[in-house]
């Protein structure tokens, strides 16, 4: 019992303490190492939760649903910190970062990990809201870090849209409390999720419906679902690349997790509207929209940002469909997308450093000049486009087949969206990876380990899913209803 309590305490205390410490350390080499070490300890603590879950408390709770997100979060957080260490060294040389920025950057990175972990383990819907707001603020600050005109513009846009989303989410949270009050009683219990889910069947359905609409709009903005996605491409393209990787790989998932929690509440109340169709519609809309937008992209990071919108759309669609198979597919797809997309951003980060540009037109023939980076990117893009035998194919196949089995008509736009996105990615990849190489502006000093470890996992998952993982995800999918 005490050991397990330590697990939860550690995934919160380690990042928080490190953030404070990193703000004080002037030498960036030390702080980069400390950043990696702390992320590693957090990962170990998160893994320990797998074996020993603490009992739910009024503030914090680890259950079978959020443990998936916590472990994924800790893993990608760790690999990104390794990538970040080699990324920032180059940024310092080229003068895009000053050492004083790095101090701030590292502190914010740990603060972000802390707030995401807090959002995931929070058992209180108010606390969860606070944590997601904190995560938003830290990422806004990091997106604006380069202080170029475009970076400030992107950060401002993200800040304004993110705040409106967050405000809507708070309003929805208040409405949930109002719905709970007549049943649960006044005070603290009215916001504790484990209490709410037990008593939700007696809540006023009309109030819950309105609350869910606000929550879906609010947290949906943070997930990047169309038409609320406008902040996402700018924020991904203009911030430091490690932040793009964490945004795509983790923060979007955390926001989606919040939506899922409330979806569970609505599903347990028989009088409330079915939350699934709303999510499925927004998901499908995002998939089609982002798929079409992929064709006109000229900036490499912006292109993969749109690809993230597309995949969040697929995941939201799968969870919206519901049922054991679609939920399983959604969970798997979320995991695969996080791993693949952050690997792609690792590759893209080094590529844009080597070439000195993010313009797709100026990056050509990577496989010739930089075989490891080039082929890593090829593998990543092939994976994210959903080609066999990689893991994303498995999960997309499951989404499509479960849709075919239940709503064949919906499968048509789904498949169309997937094919549209595939076409765009293949088209762009050809120019990036092959052809006459463009000159480099800087020598390559990439760290390949994070990227290839992710890709290896994705490849393994595509070929062979270990039975314990399958039964674990099946169990969680069953919980999601």
């Amino acid at each position, binding site marked *: 019992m005490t050991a397990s309590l330590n697990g939860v305490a550690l995934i919160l205390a380690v990042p928080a303490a490190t953030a404070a410490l990193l703000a004080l350390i002037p030498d960036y080499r030390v702080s980069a190492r400390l950043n990696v070490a702390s992320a590693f300890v957090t990962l170990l603590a998160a893994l320990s939760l797998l074996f020993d879950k603490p009992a739910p408390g009024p503030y914090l709770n680890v259950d079978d649903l959020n443990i998936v997100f916590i472990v994924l979060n800790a893993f990608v957080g760790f690999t990104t910190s390794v990538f970040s260490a080699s990324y920032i060294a180059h940024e310092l040389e080229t003068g895009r970062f000053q050492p004083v920025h790095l101090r701030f950057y590292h502190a914010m990175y740990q603060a972000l990990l802390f707030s995401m972990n807090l959002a995931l383990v929070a058992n209180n819907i108010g606390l969860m809201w606070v944590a997601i707001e904190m995560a938003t*603020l830290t990422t806004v600050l990091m997106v604006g870090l380069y202080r170029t005109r475009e970076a400030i513009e992107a950060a401002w846009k993200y800040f304004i849209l993110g705040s409106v989303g967050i*405000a809507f989410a708070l309003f929805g949270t*208040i409405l949930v409390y*109002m719905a709970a009050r007549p049943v649960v009683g006044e005070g603290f219990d009215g916001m504790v999720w484990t209490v709410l889910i037990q008593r939700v069947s007696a809540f006023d359905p009309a109030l819950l419906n309105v609350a869910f609409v606000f929550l879906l709009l609010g947290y949906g903005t943070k997930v990047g679902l169309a038409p609320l996605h406008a902040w996402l491409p700018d924020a991904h393209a203009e911030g430091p690349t490690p932040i793009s990787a964490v945004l795509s790989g983790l923060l979007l998932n955390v926001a989606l997790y919040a939506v899922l929690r409330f979806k569970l509440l609505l599903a347990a109340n028989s009088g409330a509207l079915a939350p699934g169709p709303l999510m499925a519609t927004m998901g499908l809309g995002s998939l089609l929209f982002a798929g079409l937008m992929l064709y006109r992209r*000229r900036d490499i990071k912006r292109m993969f940002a749109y690809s993230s919108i597309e995949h969040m759309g697929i995941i939201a669609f799968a969870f919206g469909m519901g049922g054991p198979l679609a939920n399983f597919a959604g969970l798997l797809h979320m995991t695969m997308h996080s791993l693949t997309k952050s690997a792609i951003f690792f590759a893209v980060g080094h590529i844009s450093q080597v070439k000195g540009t993010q313009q797709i037109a100026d990056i050509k023939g990577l496989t010739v000049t930089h075989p490891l980076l080039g082929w890593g990117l090829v593998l990543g893009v092939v994976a994210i486009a959903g080609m066999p035998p990689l893991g994303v194919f498995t999960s997309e196949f499951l989404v499509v087949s479960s849709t075919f089995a239940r709503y064949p008509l919906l499968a048509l736009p789904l498949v169309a969206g997937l094919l549209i996105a595939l076409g765009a990615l293949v088209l762009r990849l050809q120019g990036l990876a092959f052809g006459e190489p463009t000159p480099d502006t800087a020598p390559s000093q990439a760290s390949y380990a994070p990227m290839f470890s992710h890709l290896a996992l994705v490849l393994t998952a595509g070929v062979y899913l270990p039975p314990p993982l399958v039964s674990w995800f099946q169990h969680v999918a069953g919980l999601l209803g």
Partner: protein
Amino acid sequence: MDRFAFDMAHLLAGSLVLLSFMMLYQDRLYALLNVFALQAFALSLSVGWQASIQGAPHLFITAAIALVFKAIIIPVALHRIIARLGIHREVETVVSVGPTMLFGIGLVALSMVVMLRVTTGADPLAREDIAFALSVVLLGLLMMITRRNAVSQVVGFMSLENGLILAAAGAKGMPLVVEISVAFSVLVALIVIGVFLFRIRERFDTVDVVALDRFQGERL
């Protein structure tokens, strides 16, 4: 007494909506800040009233935060920022005042219809409060959309937050954690905004958001 308490709460919450409308037609930044300060003052009165009729002393803290921080410190700070940076002092609108006001009236009607209909089970005080709160939230959003200057967008956002605090105060017995954290988040958000304004000033020589909006989608 009960009747009086209800009417008073109603009056105070209603005055917030009225002040939101007043913000919509201000054409000078300083005047806008003054109206915002007045709204924050009305919010603190409203929350304070809720605290006394609900017998919830912790709400007085929220009221005090609204009074000191939002009604005094922030307006003064923004006044100074405007003066020091020499920001253009007129509010530039995307849509002219008339249509904006009409649209605002529509939004208030919408929030009344929606909230009063879905909250039939809740107690009347909370019902009225939450309906007014949603109106303030939507009017704040409208202001953010129809204004070009960064400062007036920030004011719109803060007035939106006023609506949220009104809602939180009206929901009887809502845990204190949330209210304090809301106030705290506003503080943090404000620091961010301050930093941003300075950076924007530093780089753009304007805080007009149109100047920021040069790459809608793609950089050339």
